């Protein structure tokens, strides 16, 4: 089994923290992991991507080949489309619905969403709203992890444990909010596009 994930977003959106949670859960399952990150200049509000590779066999490279990714996981709709050439023909895009507008020529959202939905199983998740309902807008990354978990071959309770460990140092309520956000994201992905429609 190998599972290659391209994570996308804008510098500062916490793409690396998402990668870290999934990687942690994968390692707890005894899988090999490679997590390639972007540091330095690109982190300043620019397009960023990270490659996360999970496998039960040794992993050769740090980069995912074109046509090799099982999943594109994005914090933002436009960024989710930047890396489509990496996606396998039957790959999936999971993205937060909310645009991150820090450029003047941010395009019309309609055609962007339509393009994403051109992939049969893709999911556009109302991540900010679900995070707010879960108790904190800051848990938006956990909603995305939750939505992605529906497509990643790692047991969801393993992911939950990884989240609990990560926030373990904080108050119990923080852990709870993040776990609720995870569950909401997972449920919305399982329910199909309904959650992202609004």
């Amino acid at each position, binding site marked *: 089994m190998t599972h290659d994930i391209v994570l996308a977003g*804008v*510098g*500062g959106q916490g793409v690396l923290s998402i990668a870290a949670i999934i*990687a942690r859960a994968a*390692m707890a399952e*005894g899988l*090999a*992991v*490679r*997590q*390639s*990150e*972007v*540091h*330095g*200049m*690109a*982190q*300043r*509000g*620019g*397009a960023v991507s990270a*490659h996360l590779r999970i496998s039960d066999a040794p*992993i*050769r*490279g*740090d*980069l*995912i*080949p*074109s*046509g*090799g990714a099982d999943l594109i996981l994005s914090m933002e709709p*436009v*960024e989710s*489309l*930047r890396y*489509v*050439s*990496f*996606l*396998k*023909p*039957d*790959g999936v895009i999971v993205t937060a619905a909310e645009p991150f507008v*820090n*450029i003047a*020529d*941010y*395009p019309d959202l309609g*055609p*962007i969403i339509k*393009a*994403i939905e*051109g*992939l049969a199983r893709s999911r556009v998740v109302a991540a900010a709203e679900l995070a707010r309902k879960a108790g904190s807008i800051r848990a938006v990354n956990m909603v995305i992890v939750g939505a992605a978990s529906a497509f990643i071959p790692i047991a969801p309770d393993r992911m939950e444990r990884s989240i609990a460990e990560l926030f373990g140092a904080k108050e119990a309520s923080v852990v709870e909010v993040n776990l609720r956000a995870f569950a909401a994201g997972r449920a919305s992905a399982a329910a199909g596009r309904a959650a992202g429609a609004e």
Partner: protein
Amino acid sequence: MGINDVVLLGDEAIALGALHSGLGAAYGYPGTPSTEILEYLIGLYEKGSGPRASWCANEKTAYEEALGASFAGLRALVTMKHVGLNVAADPFVNSALVAIKGGLVLAVADDPGMHSSQDEQDSRFYAEFAMIPCLEPANQREAYEMTREAFDLSERFQVPVMIRITTRLAHSRAGVGVRGARAGNPLGKSTDKAAWTLLPGNARRRYDRLCAIQAELQAWSAASPWNVAEASSRAADFAVITGGLGRNYFEENLGDLGVSGPPSRLHIATYPLPIEKIRRLAAANKRILVIEEGAPFIEKALRGILPSGVEVNGKLDGKLPRTGELNPDNVRAALGLVPRPSARIEVPPLPSRPPQLCQGCPHADSYAAVAKAVEGLPSTLITADIGCYALGALPPFNVPEALVCMGASISMAVGAAEAGYENVVAFIGDSTFLHSGLTPLVDAVSRGAPITIVILDNSITAMTGGQPALLPSGRLEEIARGVGVDVAHVLTIDATRAATDANVAVFKREIAHRGVSVVIARRECLEAIKAKKKKGSAAVEAAKEACE
């Protein structure tokens, strides 16, 4: 994963490898993608669980401090990015001539593709130039193991040893099996004075010695198990040589090489090049494709090593791109494989999203004020330097016209002013100023060059992740005055939007001044404030008010 596996960035694997080699001291200057090597060691040092590890004013001082520790008998690590080695080139090249006592390892991270750099120079050329050994890991485990070996080699051959990595390894995590640590060296300086005092007579003898040990280095490289040759049963038409990450991308495509089977291959991880292994591979094959990360270093050498009957493919004949990084796809194409199919959907044209200054960054206010101050002025020329503020060269600011290397903002401004430009402004960050701005300031003052230097003091090295400034904020004024800038032309301003009008007036006045002006534009970086907030510091509120 095994019980001793630790998940590490490539950078961190080097740090841990050094630590377990009995490290006595580590120095460096932050620079992407090398920063996390020393950051890891500084974290341990500050907790009291590791040897001295410190950021330095620049790569040259870092190298020399490591050299001093080695002279004193300790094992020393020095870290930098590829262009940093240009700054440290003087001590680096000369240190190959001394009799290294405590192992001295230079870990340098190259940035092909220029993710966060001004060029993509390949440090292997420096290793060859200085005639010292170089090891090139291709994964995190090798980074750990080769760093350990590098310390042994350095003490065995009494020369510094380079570990060369590239961006993708530096910034990728994987599990690494670690082994026990060994004890450090006791303090005890080298007693070989003649080898350490590089007067011409001594240096000549040392250079002869360096030339003489090249055969031993060659023998070491030839026998190194890191250079793996695998013969194939395939017809002897085609072989592959990989270097660094090229091996990973080659193996990624191996399964698709089909009926003809995998070609014979040689992976090269040690320099000087293992010439005999290369010759043996070439003797059995008509064509060799070289897949190496960075410049066509091995490829160029092959053209000198091999008989003319062997066809060499790589970056020089366009089989692989001459610039940028290797990846699984361009390696795939070089192997003659068709692209893998990917998802087919209609993607509308996407806007590019280049990096930009944070919303509310103090640099933005400084650029805005200077842009206003020079509006309508004739004969203007504006330079800038390396750091977040380099992004001011992009829209919406478009202020700097030249930006080349650490410190060049000031020296280029001096040259341009002396050439005849009248209204010349140089932007430089506080850490870049301490790194390489002091010496050109001395030039400027010594000749009274009519330039305005804007030191952007955000009290942090922001671009590389927020290393604290070496000297307390506030020392810059004293430095400028101490060097001899006229007291009336050393000014400090608040880099805030609210102060724009006042700042424009200051800049107008100073730009008109026919001598050196130093304007210190002060406000803390937003990331620094965030970091402090995380630490629960009280200074945050005051700093935040200044931003608004």
